[in-house]
């Protein structure tokens, strides 16, 4: 039944070691989002795809990249994780990205950086 699936649920990486988080959706939604959520803070939008159109937030560090090879999958690549990148990473989808479309979130990947 899960509609937005994130793997893995927990990810541990070493300082500076590249890591990839994955997200898949069964909803056939056009828009996919990546949010970073640190403890007791609001989810912060990193970037989003409208179909294949990539939109980067101005304050997203260059260390963060994303790929969307097809409608169903989206990946978040962290090239050189720092301690400050430890957070919950949430993937979300929206059918059209319009204002009245609700976002469907995955359960997130909790990233730890040692």
């Amino acid at each position, binding site marked *: 039944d899960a509609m937005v699936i994130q793997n893995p649920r927990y990810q541990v990486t070493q300082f500076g070691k590249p890591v990839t988080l994955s997200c898949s959706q069964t909803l056939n939604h056009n828009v996919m989002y990546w949010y970073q959520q640190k403890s007791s803070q609001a*989810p912060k939008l990193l970037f989003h795809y409208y179909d294949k159109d990539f939109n980067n937030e101005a304050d997203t560090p260059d260390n963060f990249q994303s790929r969307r090879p097809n409608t169903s999958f989206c990946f978040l690549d962290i090239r050189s994780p720092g301690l400050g990148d430890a957070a919950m990473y949430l993937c*979300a989808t929206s059918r059209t990205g319009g204002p009245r479309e609700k976002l469907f979130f995955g359960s997130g990947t909790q990233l730890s950086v040692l």
Partner: protein
Amino acid sequence: QQQVKQSPQSLIVQKGGISIINCAYENTAFDYFPWYQQFPGKGPALLIAIRPDVSEKKEGRFTISFNKSAKQFSLHIMDSQPGDSATYFCAAFVNAGGTSYGKLTFGQGTILTVHP
């Protein structure tokens, strides 16, 4: 300009009481205001939402009050239950310029605890 400020950070309510969470924004381009509920270990899920041309929206025990002139909106949970214990985020939607799609900006979140 893009921020949504939410208060309080945490809230403790007795079962049956009313929980009230407040949000304020500056950007007048925001044009849709949802509330999301997040349980531990889960992603946020849409709870209720309101358009800026409406002053109040009610769904069951949940009500949003919206004051456009003050740029404030609030969530009221009537007859609060222990199962309502979660983190609540207000949010505001803005269109990406010149497009039909956009993005949500979230408030900082309120951790609600309802004691039995």
